């Protein structure tokens, strides 16, 4: 009897010694990661502003660092991914194009957005391009080819390098106006790529409220046949007959972003009882459309959307004002009073306006088309989006690529949801997903998108690329 207990005692002592050394909790299974059949040694990202990391109405260093391609590359590095070179702004010019920050709130709780104008990469030594002021050139290796503003249509045009300062910035001087975006990115010969392009083939039209600027050849809706021809060529060129794998993304429903959904509900709620409808210009011409009060979209009721930029003018409803048109003329000729006056007259003539009448409530002084996305304009956008997304999915099938269905994803987040104790919704500022321009995601939003893409890559290729902890990325900073 005694012997047993002596042995038990010895065993207890031994196990005690063991327990002290093994006191950290350990999981039964080690983390297993796998790249599957994929080769991440040279990842190249192709796309527009979303790919560049554009947010808060600008491209700047922080946004570039937290771009979804950079997050993807970081996660690829766990499964053999190579270095990922981005065309970063220098720290000295970290504010890049300039952007909007949240300066505070007005007494009524409206956000006050302040432009950041220091430490820019904007060049004043050379003339501006049609697409805006040029930016400091980037001369190193580039794997993130995100170019804000670029559309599928523009990507095939060699002259585009002389139009868009974000593209011009990435090109050698001799290439500007000579080499198309498609040529440039296809020549990189990636082993893995992401392709998220096409948003601007409808977005420019949408954010301009359905107005096409005659001076801008890329401001309309790209015909589906043209889109198909260019996109198929681009996807095939990157894939090199399936030598490279990759992921493509569909185009979100532009109507799902806060740029369009924020203002309407407040505007509708604030309309005086006597006002049952407003009048607006529709599309690019002088045609008017009447929008009934209950046709202003709130949640799933109504249709008409008001842009975030309309906030500045909707308060003038019912007043005899031409401020919007004056602002337009002034923006075009900021330093030339006579030219500005001329332009204002042209606009009033063109749209047959009488600004002594009640703004937005009379046929003579309708709301500008650029501030409203009415039912007809939305129908055009929706039809194009659907066609593009079919083309994108077909290209993915043809080249054996994964698909991130951004259309479905951005619709799914319309319903607020909770993750790790944080509520996400498409609400402006408070929804955590969208940055201060109401179109582009916050760093947190981009991280969530990167995770969604990783899940699709894993699903398609049976890989196990790890996702990232999205709580480590910021949403909108509140002063």
């Amino acid at each position: 009897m005694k012997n047993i207990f002596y042995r038990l005692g010895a065993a207890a002592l031994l196990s005690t010694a063991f327990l002290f050394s093994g006191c950290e909790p350990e999981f039964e299974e080690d983390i297993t990661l796998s790249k599957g059949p994929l080769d991440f040694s040279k990842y190249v990202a192709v796309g527009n502003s979303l790919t560049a990391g554009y947010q808060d109405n600008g491209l700047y260093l922080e946004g570039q660092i937290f771009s979804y391609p950079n997050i993807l590359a970081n996660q690829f590095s766990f499964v053999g991914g190579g270095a990922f070179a981005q065309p970063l702004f220098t720290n000295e010019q970290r504010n890049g194009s300039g952007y909007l920050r949240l300066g505070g709130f007005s007494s009524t709780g409206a956000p006050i957005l302040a432009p950041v104008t220091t430490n820019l990469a904007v060049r004043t030594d050379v003339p501006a391009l049609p697409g805006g002021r040029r930016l400091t050139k980037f001369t190193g290796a580039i794997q993130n080819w995100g170019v804000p503003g670029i559309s599928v249509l523009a990507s095939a045009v060699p002259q585009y390098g002389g139009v868009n300062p974000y593209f011009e910035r990435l090109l050698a001087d001799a290439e500007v106006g000579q080499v198309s975006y498609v040529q440039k990115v296809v020549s990189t010969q990636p082993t893995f790529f992401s392709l998220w392009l096409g948003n601007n083939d409808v977005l420019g039209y949408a954010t301009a409220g359905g107005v096409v600027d005659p001076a801008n050849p890329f401001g309309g809706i790209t015909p589906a046949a043209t889109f198909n021809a260019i996109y198929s060529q681009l996807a095939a060129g990157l894939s090199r007959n399936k030598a490279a794998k990759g992921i493509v993304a569909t185009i979100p429903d532009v109507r799902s972003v806060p740029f369009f959904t924020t203002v309407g509900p407040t505007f509708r709620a604030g309309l005086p009882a006597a006002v049952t409808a407003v009048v607006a210009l529709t599309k690019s011409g002088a045609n008017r459309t009447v929008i009934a009060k209950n046709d202003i979209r709130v949640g799933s009721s109504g249709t008409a959307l008001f842009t975030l930029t309309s906030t500045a003018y909707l308060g003038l409803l019912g007043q005899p004002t031409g401020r919007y048109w004056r602002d337009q003329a002034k923006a075009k000729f900021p330093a030339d009073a006579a030219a500005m006056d001329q332009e204002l007259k042209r606009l009033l003539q063109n749209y047959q306006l009488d600004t002594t009448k009640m703004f937005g409530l009379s046929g003579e002084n309708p709301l500008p088309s650029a501030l409203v996305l009415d039912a007809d304009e939305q129908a055009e956008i929706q039809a194009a989006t659907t066609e593009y997304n079919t083309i994108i999915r077909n290209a993915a099938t043809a080249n054996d690529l994964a698909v991130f269905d951004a259309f479905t994803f951005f619709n799914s987040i319309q319903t607020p949801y909770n993750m790790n104790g944080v509520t996400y919704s498409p609400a402006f500022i408070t929804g955590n997903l969208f940055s201060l321009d109401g179109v582009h995601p916050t760093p947190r939003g981009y991280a969530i998108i990167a995770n969604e893409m990783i899940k699709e890559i894993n699903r398609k290729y049976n890989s196990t690329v790890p996702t990232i902890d999205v709580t480590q990325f910021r949403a909108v900073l509140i002063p």
Partner: protein
Amino acid sequence: MKSKFLALLGSAVLSAGVAQAGGFQANLQGQKQLGMGHAGTGLALDQSSIFFNPGALAHLRQNGIQLGVSALNAKIAYREPSPGISESATDNPISTPFQVYASFGKEDSPLRFGIGVYTPFGSSVNWGTRWQGRYGLNELTLKTIFIQPTISYRITDKLGLGAGFIYSTGSVNLQRSIPLADANYNEAGVELDGAASGFGFNLGVFFQPTEKLSLGLTYRSKVEMEVKEGDVTFRLPTSPLVAGQFQATQFDASLPMPANITLGIGFKPTEALTFAVDVQRVQWSAYKSLRFDYNAGIRGETFSESPRNYEDVFIYRVGAQYKLSEIFTIRAGAYYDNSPVQEGYLTPETPDSDSRGVSGGLTLALSDKVDLDASFLYINKKERTDDASKSGGVAGTFKSVAYIPGVGINYKF
């Protein structure tokens, strides 16, 4: 001698332990019992009967005072749901649950009086301010001290009854991050801090039909710990618009310390050898939700409530002690504790799962009047993965271990 005891008491940090039974119950109430898987309801071992079974107190031959303290070192690891790979671990301070028991009564009297001061519930979990679940919890410290005056009556040599009144005092401190960052990227947060108190009782029956066999049955009531006007402190961006959304300055809350029914059996095949078996029913179903009521709105809400819906559980304990000599006694034991936390309800404050404890201990009798106890308990909770969909917790996988050395001193008079 007494003054030394007081000095010891003063130096002990008055904090309760991490949740080392299911939920936030900390079954660390006697060093001898700890050596035997914390079984002992059916035994009359020493003054710790005030906790384990007030009915057994009057069966002790001597009066005495006992002091004990454990050093509770618990670690919890977290891994986010696949295919995420982020891991976190708690940096919990070592906490020191303690127990003090004293009994008085005339040697030939069947009546004994006792007082116990012990820490049966508590939690101390610190996940920090960077981990993925920080909007659920940064840090939680729950402390309770039960003070239990007790009376025990030996009806016959075979039967004893005892009852104790419990006054409980304690505190709760909960800190969590708020998903709002200011222009300098400082994340907002809230701290709830308040004192708590409650009442309850502890009843026990001790029955010893033969020299070799003894039985105990106890009922320790639920103690509702009430916090009145605890402090709410926010750390927020300075914008008045934000401050206007977080106006609460005080909170009320109520947290149930659940009732326990324990049946214990003691068996002495020889003079030197004792076996103990306990079956403990913990009525955790009293813990329905964690609710805080505020004196002003937080984002328009004057209260927050997250469901817990704990379920009643059984804990099974076995242990043995063997008296090697007049001066040396050794012990060993183990227990199995079912988790009261149902699927979908896991939270970072108590990422609980079924747990297994093994323990060992010894007693060194320095003299007829003084002996020293030592114990060591190792707890290993099963790895548990939960989506936390019902508790508003943090989805992922949790794994906890704890090692708890303890010492005690007894003085008999």
